[in-house]
């Protein structure tokens, strides 16, 4: 390995609306190595790499490629410099074929007709795919490919555009273990055998330990360390990424569960084009947390949507014991019964970002008439209740109750949702990925709320793609795959076995 510098970012800063996403971050990757960029959500990894790929312009700092100072005017410039980035959200034109997608980014001025160029591109796709060790149909429509296949299209796209520095943003987040291993082996070969530079943006320790030659750790917009993963333990790496924050406790305190509260049987999607749910059966008891684990995209969002009363086309039943089907309950009745919902995407299902904190909070009790009859709102009472809840649930960053909910950080917005949903003693809690995008401290607070709701006798259904979270909270664990619950595990459960169940069943 030559080990010359491939790409170097020096003291790069960038802020968004006053929020400093990057402050003086520096990063160097060498030819022939897989370089991991490790950090928690929001640590600035993606921002830094978007600057390297020419998507964002940095405010200060400089970029070197092959030790030459360069200035990127845009992604096209990055591409001519041999930098290619595969984004977390694929940048593919869905109704186009694989070849059309790849042709889009190519610049060749040969006097060929459109058809000939498409044919030529298709040949190149086949050759390059074969070199990397997989096959792909160049004329398949992208929206008919699986996620793993779409990712390969992305990789082919940047490689055919001539990339020698390959940036992969969270490439394994959407893949099963087997697919992830496959991908990482492929890119490792690309670096080691062809001498390219591969940058792996990730928050997964295992990927780093197994595949990276070098790792740079980021925390709150800064690069805090750059080292060889072999030289440290996982524990040390964790400590570098999360800082001195306390580590989450491992096993939830168990307690005898009560009678059955919610009985879901044969829940199926009725949309024939997207039969995502294929017969979900589960029963949830009072005083327990039932965790649903699984690789994302196996029906978790649809299940959560159906249970939370969103317009999700489903058949089957969701019996709330003694009250009938969840679907038949009005919004006000759901509130009266103490059904609390904490959706995964706060700003598309729980909080209206442009509205004030008190307006958002008021929705919790608006139906009961506590805040006045239909023709009159009792603003003072709303404000008093909101103020009380904000202090009780420790929602920070509230300068005024009239301030937009959008100005709250992720963790505090989540606390506001919980404050509203838990304003009555909750009886049934449906939670989807409650700690997504939260820092460690906020996550702990949220978990504590869920545990205390359970200990007060509520039935809690926790749906999460984060296995660590499910392991830490749930009393029973169901594994979801291809729209079904394919196995149940009681705590203390074997993490390995659950992981196997998540990926093996198809």
């Amino acid at each position, binding site marked *: 390995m030559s080990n010359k510098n491939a790409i170097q970012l020096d003291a790069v800063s960038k802020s968004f609306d006053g929020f400093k996403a990057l402050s003086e971050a520096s990063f160097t990757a060498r030819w022939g190595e897989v370089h991991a960029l490790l950090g928690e959500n929001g640590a600035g990894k993606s921002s830094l790499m978007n600057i390297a790929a020419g998507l964002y312009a940095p405010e200060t700092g400089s970029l070197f490629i092959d030790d030459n100072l360069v200035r990127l005017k845009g992604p096209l410039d990055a591409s001519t410099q041999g930098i290619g980035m595969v984004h977390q959200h694929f940048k593919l034109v869905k*109704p186009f074929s694989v070849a059309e997608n790849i042709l889009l980014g190519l610049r060749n001025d040969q006097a060929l007709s*459109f058809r000939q160029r498409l044919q030529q591109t298709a040949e190149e796709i086949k050759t390059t795919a074969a070199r990397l060790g997989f096959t792909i149909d160049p004329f398949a429509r992208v929206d008919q490919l699986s996620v793993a296949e779409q990712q390969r299209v992305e990789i082919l796209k940047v490689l055919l555009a001539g990339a020698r520095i390959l940036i992969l943003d969270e490439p394994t987040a959407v893949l099963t273990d087997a697919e992830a291993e496959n991908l990482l082996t492929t890119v490792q070969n690309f670096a080691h055998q062809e001498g390219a530079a591969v940058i792996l943006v990730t928050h997964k320790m295992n990927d780093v330990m197994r595949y990276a030659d070098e790792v740079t750790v980021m925390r709150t917009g800064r690069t805090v360390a750059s080292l060889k993963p072999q030289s440290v333990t996982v524990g040390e790496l964790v400590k570098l990424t999360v800082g001195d924050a306390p580590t989450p406790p491992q096993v939830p305190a168990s307690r005898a569960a009560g009678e059955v509260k919610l009985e879901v049987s044969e829940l199926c999607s009725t949309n024939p084009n997207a039969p995502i749910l294929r017969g979900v059966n589960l029963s949830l008891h009072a005083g327990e947390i039932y965790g649903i684990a699984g690789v994302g995209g196996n029906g978790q969002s649809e299940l959560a949507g159906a249970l939370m009363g969103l317009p999700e086309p489903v058949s089957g039943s969701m019996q709330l014991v003694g009250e009938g089907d969840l679907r038949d309950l009005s919004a006000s009745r759901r509130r009266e019964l103490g059904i609390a919902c904490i959706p995964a995407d706060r700003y598309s299902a729980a909080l209206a970002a442009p509205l004030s904190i008190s307006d958002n909070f008021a929705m919790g009790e608006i139906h009961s008439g506590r805040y006045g009859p239909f023709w009159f709102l009792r603003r003072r009472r709303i404000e008093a209740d909101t103020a009380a809840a904000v202090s009780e649930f420790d929602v920070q960053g509230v300068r005024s109750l009239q301030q937009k909910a959008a100005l709250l950080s992720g963790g505090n917005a989540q606390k506001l949702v919980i404050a509203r949903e838990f304003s009555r003693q909750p009886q049934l809690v449906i939670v989807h990925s409650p700690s997504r995008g939260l820092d460690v401290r906020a996550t702990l607070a949220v978990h504590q709320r869920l545990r205390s709701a359970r200990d007060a006798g509520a039935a809690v259904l926790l749906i999460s793609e984060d296995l660590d979270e499910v392991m830490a909270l749930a009393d029973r664990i169901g594994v979801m795959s291809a729209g079904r619950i394919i196995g149940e595990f009681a705590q203390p459960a074997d993490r390995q076995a659950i992981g196997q169940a998540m990926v093996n069943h198809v």
Partner: protein
Amino acid sequence: MSLIASWIGNIPDFAVPFALAALGLIIIERSGVLALGAEGLMLVGAMSGIGASLMTDGSTVAALIMAMIAAAVVSQLFALMVLIMRINQVIAGLALVFFCQGLTGLCGTLMNWTSRPVSGLSDLSLWPLSELPVLGKLFIQDPVVYLTPIIFLLVVLVLNRTVLGLRLRAVGENPQAADAAGIPVLAYRCAAIAAGSALIGLAGAYISVLSTKMWLADMVGGRGWIAVALVIFARWSPWKALAGAVLFGCIEALIPQMAASGIRLPQYFVFMTPYAVTLGVMIWVAVASRDNSSQPGALGEPFIREERR
């Protein structure tokens, strides 16, 4: 019999403005910009066509070209609003219509162009097709009628069979992907707005210069909006839009025929039919096909790169 023949002969006259306007809208909307301004741009085309014709002593070709240029120039105001200022595309489209209505009303009066006749273009007959019974009159038309299918063919070829078209569609489907592929999204959208608007301007000029042969304030009379509805009905496909335009041409061509035939129907109810049919078609489309798969993926969304949250 002669009534049917003259009805059929009149259809292209009424269908061409719908067809050209819808095609212009399709070009703009395929680039991901929601274009509601057709009504206004057609007015600009209609007025400047007459204006150019009057000022150049009846050169119709110059008039049509002027109309296309004028509409393309005015459309850049819309481009500025939606591409640079990132104004909501519905508001920008409406503002453009109102702006054009005011502007054409003002200019038409101040320049004293209202109700002054122009010569138009003489009809070309395609022998021997023009000798066909009943359908013959379909082949005695002005040159723009014959040009319309050719324009459609060219646009379809460019959209589907060239790299330029591929890029334009990519910009409309997924501007982020197009941007990452190095395509200048805003430049493509701006060009699409200009090119589409030129066609819409031609559609307007067709009404004034070739059909009625004079300018009247607000003479487009909602045809631009019907074209917007046609595009939705055609699911952004040019050929279906052409078919829809012919359908509306048939209906509109029927109105003068009914008066001529002596059928006693309240005339204002007859005038309502194109609008009622549009409404009916919108409902039918909504009931028949609920999928939005053929709609450009990024229609109506401004393209923003350097922003977050």
